[in-house]
């Protein structure tokens, strides 16, 4: 029963994390899975990579990914990360960077663009008609310039999940109490030695 309580607790944590990110563009919700094993109930989580709704912003450098995968951005410390959060802006040096200052990577180098550049669905950056860079994208994935991908978190479903996890926790606790009570009976009544 203790594992059932722990499982309910992790379900709540996952839902709370989803709810916390209901305003985070490009965020993909996590799903809870609870399975019965030899060690009782075990909770795990996975990422639901279904497409979030595209929301129009009109800014050229707001990019929404349509399909699987993400953009590749480079941290100031050099590590390359994949992200679906596609709100970029031009840095003072003319490169496209996200709100954490990470540079958007093209096929060969970070993408630089002028203020009136355009970006097509295949991720080709054009400046006054001529191609200047190609954003690195997974095969088969396209981008939409002027849009951001909203999160795919459904607040209503997460609220239901929160309540459900809470009740599951309560059920497990009640059951634990009942088991405790019957053992108490075993110890105090059934096993009482008549004097």
């Amino acid at each position, binding site marked *: 029963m203790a594992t059932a309580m722990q499982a309910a607790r992790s379900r709540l944590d996952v839902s*709370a*994390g989803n709810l*916390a990110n209901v305003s*985070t563009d490009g*965020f993909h919700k996590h799903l809870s899975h609870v399975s019965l094993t030899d060690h009782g109930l075990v909770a795990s989580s996975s990422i639901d990579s279904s497409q979030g709704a595209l929301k129009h912003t009109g800014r050229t450098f707001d990019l929404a990914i349509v399909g699987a995968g993400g953009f590749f951005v480079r941290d100031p410390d050099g590590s390359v990360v994949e992200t679906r959060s596609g709100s970029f802006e031009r*840095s003072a040096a003319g490169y496209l960077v996200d709100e954490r200052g990470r540079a958007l990577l093209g096929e060969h180098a970070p993408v630089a663009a002028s203020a009136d550049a355009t970006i097509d669905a295949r991720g080709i950056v054009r400046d006054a008609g001529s191609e200047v860079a190609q954003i690195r994208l997974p095969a088969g994935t396209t981008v939409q310039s002027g849009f951001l991908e909203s999160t795919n978190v459904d*607040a209503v479903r997460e*609220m239901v999940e929160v309540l459900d996890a809470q009740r599951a926790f309560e059920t497990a*606790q009640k059951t634990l109490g009942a088991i*405790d009570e019957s053992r108490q009976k075993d110890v105090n009544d059934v096993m009482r030695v008549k004097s």
Partner: protein
Amino acid sequence: MFAAATGMAAQQQNLDVIADNLANADVAGFKSAQATFAAIGGGEMLGTASTGVREIFAQGKLVKTGGAFDVAIDGAGFFAVERAGASGFTRAGSFSRTADGTLRNAEGWTLRGVHIPANAVSVTVATNGRVTADLGHGATSAAGRIGLVAFVAPEELRPVDSAVFAATQGSGIARPLAAGGDRQPKIQFGMLEKSNVSIVESMMAILAAQRAYEANSKGVQAADEMLRIANNIHRS
């Protein structure tokens, strides 16, 4: 419980930014802002964190005001202004004439490059920024030029007044921007640029933020309730 708490803090900040936009919806040249967030914790869910507030420099509507010294920018760029030695950049063009011949806005920022002769009756401004003073009886004289400047990364400008910004290291330095020609920004005289805040969109964003705040507070409550139940194990 802490993940839900970070969600509440995020929505609180979201509301603050929207409220500031709404408060300045009638300020000419005001640019709306938007709070942005990112998930923290990677595979393990730890909640959300603010990644800052982004200025949105979309063009506001130009409205005819007939003000004798009102100017608006149709296109990109900023007016260069100064106050007590500090440089500022703004798209708010509501100025009035001062005794020393300069144009100044209500917050005390002086427009650079314009000196109106003391005997001028009125002024006109061409789309390229050239200012001409009418001295009466058909006589005119040049009274300077309103210059426009642009930045490589305008989103990195730092707001110093409701509609005045200062350059930062991230934005780069102000570069002069030609005005008046084909495909160039134009300076419109007798007009003002309204704020680019959409009241309807802001109201909807407030409702969404409020509900999201509430949902996150329910998450905190549920976690608290679980702890309470756990503490009661012994008594049931």
